[in-house]
């Protein structure tokens, strides 16, 4: 098992790179899981503003309006001072300042609802429309209730009660089929595209490149170790290492998302990641045959890793990518992997037939890359000979 042992030693010599990639990825995964409850807004809460109120009327109705505003915002009574008001709004001490004009109550009793209050805020602020709509509602309800025979104070309180009744609001997501856990789980597996590729290429390629160095190969071939035994040991090393790395990521996924992981959808995603691993291993073998040294292999690995992740919807969801980019991405295995995950658990429409097509496409990529590696490898050997 000399070849296998030396294979693992070379892979081990790349442990810092492997640990770096794996550590960063798993740390990000853990952090995103821990903060996942706040990561997606699925509840609605009223916004509370700090409002300054200048009450020039000082009547019962103006008092009820202040109470009403105090219930839904944080309010403070202030005096009219234009300079101070400008300063307070500029430095955001108050989001909005309301001035209840003198004659507020009298005008309201007369049914005149115009010009009862004046508002001050930053130009173009959305607070203006929010507070205006709230005060206008109060004024219009109160006016209507007074006209319908209620006493002014009763009318104002009834209006306050009517407006204050909360409407339960929930955010309707376009992707309402996939909950937050699904999203995080799918993201973890999508990011495996980049991380698996980087980890496998950066450690598998050096071992394969070194063992395939012409002088080392000549020396090994001149020995009594058969070529088939060498090949078997190389394959064993590749399998042990790549499956080991994959199992590490699967174990992390199991710990972080155990309920999703063990669901039928989760297992299908796990299967897809394994098929994608085969593609990555084939790609790594091809890179090791093409690249003359490890530096070139690293560059190729980085370019392919980033390129595929950007084009195939790892960093940016496929639904946000342009038609042109998506069409081009069809020739990359990452596209089918990400699409398969989306179709299984992510944001896309669930369709098992498409998932199967994606898996078959990935297998085809693995087979083509492997065949290409064999052809180039054989050609290069002939050239060296």
């Amino acid at each position, binding site marked *: 098992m*000399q070849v296998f042992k*030396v294979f693992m*030693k070379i892979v081990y010599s790349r442990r810092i790179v492997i640990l770096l990639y794996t550590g960063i990825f798993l740390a990000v995964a853990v952090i995103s899981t821990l903060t996942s409850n706040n990561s997606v807004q699925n509840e609605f809460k009223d916004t509370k503003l700090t409002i300054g109120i200048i009450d020039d009327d000082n009547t019962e109705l103006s008092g009820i309006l202040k109470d009403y505003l105090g219930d839904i915002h944080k309010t403070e009574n202030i005096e009219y001072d234009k300079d101070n008001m400008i300063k307070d709004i500029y430095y955001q001490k108050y989001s909005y300042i309301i001035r209840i004009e003198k004659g507020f109550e009298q005008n309201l009793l007369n049914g005149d609802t115009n010009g009862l209050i004046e508002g001050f805020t930053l130009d173009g602020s959305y607070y203006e429309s929010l507070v205006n709509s709230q005060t206008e509602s109060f004024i219009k309800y109160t006016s209507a209730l007074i006209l319908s025979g209620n006493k002014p104070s009763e009318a104002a309180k009834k209006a306050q009660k009517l407006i204050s009744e909360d409407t339960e609001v929930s955010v309707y997501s376009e992707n309402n089929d996939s909950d937050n856990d699904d999203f995080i789980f799918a993201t973890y597996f999508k990011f495996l595209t980049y991380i698996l590729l980087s980890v496998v290429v950066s450690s598998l390629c050096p071992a394969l490149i*070194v063992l395939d160095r012409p*002088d080392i190969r*000549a*020396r090994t*071939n*001149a020995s009594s*170790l058969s070529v088939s035994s060498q090949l078997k040991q190389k394959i064993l090393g590749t399998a042990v290492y790549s499956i080991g790395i994959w199992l590490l990521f699967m174990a992390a996924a199991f710990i972080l998302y155990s309920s999703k992981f063990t669901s039928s959808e989760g297992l299908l995603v796990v299967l897809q990641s394994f098929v994608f691993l085969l593609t990555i291993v084939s790609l790594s073998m091809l890179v090791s045959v093409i690249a003359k040294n490890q530096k070139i292999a690293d560059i190729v690995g980085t370019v392919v890793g980033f390129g595929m992740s950007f084009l195939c919807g790892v960093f940016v969801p496929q639904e946000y990518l342009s038609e042109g980019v998506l069409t081009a991405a069809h020739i990359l295995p990452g596209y089918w992997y990400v699409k398969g995950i989306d179709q299984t658990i992510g944001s896309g429409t669930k369709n098992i037939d498409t998932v199967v097509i994606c898996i078959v496409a990935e297998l085809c990529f693995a087979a083509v890359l492997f065949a290409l590696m064999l052809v180039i490898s054989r050609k290069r050997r002939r050239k060296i000979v």
Partner: protein
Amino acid sequence: MSQTIVKIDGLVKRYKELTAVDDLSLEIQEGEILGLLGPNGSGKTTTINCLLSLLSYDEGNIEVFGSKMTPDNYKAKAKIGVISQNVAVFDELNVYENIDYFCGLYIKDKKLRRQYTDEAIEFAGLNDFKKFKPKKLSGGLLRRLNIACGIAHKPSLIILDEPTVAVDPQSRNRILEGIEKLNRDGASIIYTSHYMEEVEQLCSRIIIMDKGKNIASGTKEELKKKVNITETIKAEVRNADEETLSKIKQLPHITSSEYDGKLLTVKCSGGKHNLIRLIEVLNEHELHLGRVYTELPTLNDVFLEITGKQLRDKED
């Protein structure tokens, strides 16, 4: 009677238009050091690669240890040690691990392998560098590591392909001494080189190769007899004129003379008193002599003469 352990018969290896090895035949007897001498591109490494079945060949037959050499003749391969021209070791492994790896390609038993690895380290004088990675070794130490990797499994036949290229004289001497020791311990050796003096020092039999052909073979004494030179006289002379040089050329047994303004080189074939006659001529012309010395023919002379003749034959 010694046993023939390698027999190459009519080997031909072509690379498209180029014939790298042209109808080469040779035999190696047990216990001998056979030198393959030739300039770069003369077909030495190609012959070795064919012998090891690392290369296929177009014609001929190769037998090693009595059986036909094929890529899967692992029984024969197990008895061969290869030290390649390039240092073929792993940069990722240290000295001990490298030797252990290559030894392990032949020796399965762990205990025996450990013993052999230690012995190879001792042999190559790498005891102080066991934990060193190859990149930290000097050129000479690297060559010694390369040799240790090739001989650790105690092969009966050791093939050294230019093992002293780009090595300092001290390391070269140590390597050559090591090779002699391996031979004394019973290994047969094929030694390829384009350094005449190494081949002359080491090899009991020499094959001179040029353009893929065996152009001369025999012991060094036999080879030297094949050339038309018995001695080369070199004399430091100043201001020798054409008349003097012409007289020297007319002396008996002088085959050639060259003068570069400082050193007069005269080649003689046979005869006695050549040096005395030469000095007489120089004295007659009142030329001041500096150092005068004679050299016996070397393999360099043999090679130059043999390849020179061939070239002239073709030109004719």
